[in-house]
């Protein structure tokens, strides 16, 4: 009996640990994040630059969630790069994530020397958010504005189609 209680507690502990882990939001500078933009594999990466206070960004977040679900059987990775700053950021992001039901991976990019890193993301981008990069190996599409679900889906389909 005692054993099973301990076992139960252990399971409980493991599951809560996993829950916390899944919500951990890491902060990077651009050098640390840069590999994300250059992976060479069979996954399509959908990378969105956003912030909680950015209205058009928040408006388009549901499309990224929908993409994640609708393409769950395809090799797709959605990453939301938050450019938020200020106090208690991780806590605020987690609250926001729960409220808005955002399950995609969120990372924080904390690198104020933007003139250096914006160019490395894409020459066409001048730093206005929202902005979205979709790439698979060397194929890449960049939206330097708000996107629709249709645009995201078409862009992803095109990339997968081209490689077949």
């Amino acid at each position: 009996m005692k054993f099973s209680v301990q076992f139960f507690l252990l399971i409980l502990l493991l599951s809560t640990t996993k829950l916390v882990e899944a919500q951990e939001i890491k902060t990077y500078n651009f050098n640390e994040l840069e590999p994300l933009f250059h992976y060479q594999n069979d996954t399509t990466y959908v990378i969105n630059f956003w912030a909680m206070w950015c209205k058009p960004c928040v408006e388009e977040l549901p499309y990224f969630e929908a993409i994640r679900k609708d393409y769950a059987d395809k090799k797709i990775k959605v990453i939301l790069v938050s450019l938020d700053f200020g106090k208690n950021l991780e806590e605020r992001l987690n609250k926001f994530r729960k409220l808005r039901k955002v399950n995609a991976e969120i990372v924080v990019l904390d690198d104020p020397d933007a003139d250096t890193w914006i160019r490395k993301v894409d020459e066409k981008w001048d730093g206005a958010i929202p902005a979205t990069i979709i790439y698979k190996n060397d194929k890449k599409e960049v939206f330097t504005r708000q996107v629709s679900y249709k645009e995201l889906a078409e862009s992803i389909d095109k990339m997968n189609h081209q490689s077949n």
Partner: protein
Amino acid sequence: MKRIISLGLFILATIGLNAQSYQIGDKAADFKLKNVDGKYVSLSDYKDAKGFIVIFTCNHCPFSVAYEDRIIKLDRKYKTKGFPVIAINPNDPELFESDSFENMIKRSNKKGFTFPYLIDETQDVYRKYGATKTPHVFILSTKNGKHTVEYIGAIDNNYKGADQATKHYIKDAVDALLQNKKPMVTTTKAIGCSIKSK
């Protein structure tokens, strides 16, 4: 004939592309926009100006807010030297209530803006300049009533704080222009809030 038409179209398309946004060396158009004090402001009102620090900025954007104190400092420093700051809010207030003219007046009073804070009601000026976000800086040099674009981009290289910035783009560009030199750095990029239009 066909060739002439397509050449014509090509030229029109090229003009169209160039009209999208100012490049370094372009002549910038004057404007007449309403200031928070209710009066209209044009570049031509400044008879003695050697140039202008035109900054597209607004109330709602945290990057703009982070730079407010630095913009006031720049205006204080360079207005007397002939390079005043002209701030323009390019956002459609219907899409962002906090960027309404009323709220611009409030913000200007609260922060004690030392420079005009103009509303781009028709949103024609930001389009003509090719501003895409706030804050977005255009430094102009003025000679014989003509305004030349000398610098486009960011204020400095650290939105978090003036003391953390290691490159001061506006300061460097205006200091160069004051010595009749061209700025070393003419374009930079920065994160900003996209301009809201219908």
